[in-house]
């Protein structure tokens, strides 16, 4: 008669232990998000969301810094406006709109999928919101560059 312990499957003794967290949901859960190479659409969307998010946080403080010029008075602000209405700065404005649109629209997708409202339509949402965002970006760019 064989020993009863030998009939147990491998690792049986450790089944009661708490193991690593196996996460489900949208996006890449842990490190490596900043390298989208070889990842599926969800991984790319998650990486881009983080990059645009960090960029927008940087812009928030840059914006507050620029608005400090208003405290110095009309002259300082007029000097800044001369710089801000150059082609380079207007191009950066369009880049800002791109970042806001991507982060905002992808945020809608993540909220809808993550909350379970449309859990099985994340690819369709990504593409449809992408088309909508592209149209808005083109309109915004035409407006910004057209005002020059």
């Amino acid at each position, binding site marked *: 008669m064989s020993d009863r312990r030998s009939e147990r499957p491998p690792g049986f003794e450790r089944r009661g232990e*708490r193991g690593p967290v196996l996460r489900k949901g949208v996006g890449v859960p842990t490190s490596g998000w900043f390298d989208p190479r070889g990842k599926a659409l969800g991984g790319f969307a998650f990486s881009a969301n983080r990059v645009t998010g*960090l960029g927008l946080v940087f812009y928030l403080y840059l914006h507050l810094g620029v608005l400090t010029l208003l405290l110095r008075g009309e002259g300082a*602000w007029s000097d800044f406006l001369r710089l801000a*209405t150059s082609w380079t700065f207007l191009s950066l404005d369009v880049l800002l709109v791109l970042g806001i649109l991507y982060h905002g629209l992808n*945020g809608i997708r993540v909220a809808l999928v993550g909350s379970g409202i449309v859990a099985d339509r994340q690819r369709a949402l990504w593409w449809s919101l992408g088309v909508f965002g592209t149209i808005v970006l083109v309109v915004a760019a035409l407006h910004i560059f057209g005002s*020059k």
Partner: protein
Amino acid sequence: MATIRTRPERTRSRTRSRGTRSGGSWTATTLTGVGLLVLLAIHMVANHFVVRSVGGLRSYRQIIEYISDPIIFAIEAIFLLFVTSHAMLGVRGVLLDLDPSPRARRWIDIGLVTLGLGTLAYGYFLIGTLASRA
């Protein structure tokens, strides 16, 4: 159901205290994000798409006139609160994905709360000062 081991196994105490984004944090990020969609749209349209000038940018006088309107002032104040909260929660999520120790996590929370409060204080000082110049 097949599962994939996504991170190295940890001891019990480490697993309990691991720094990850909680459900409450996700909900807060989502709610502030939804609020931002509306407030940011108002902010961007009002500051870039209303005034007829290069880039839609307002002159100094136009800004003072704009921000001194009580409704606009209230909208911009709420916008600042939402954008700062959302930004701090987002940065916290990025930092917690690096899986910091409980001690580091505590410092991250303290640092981000301090930075957020400082940002709000400066932002309110800025728009309050400008509104008072009208």
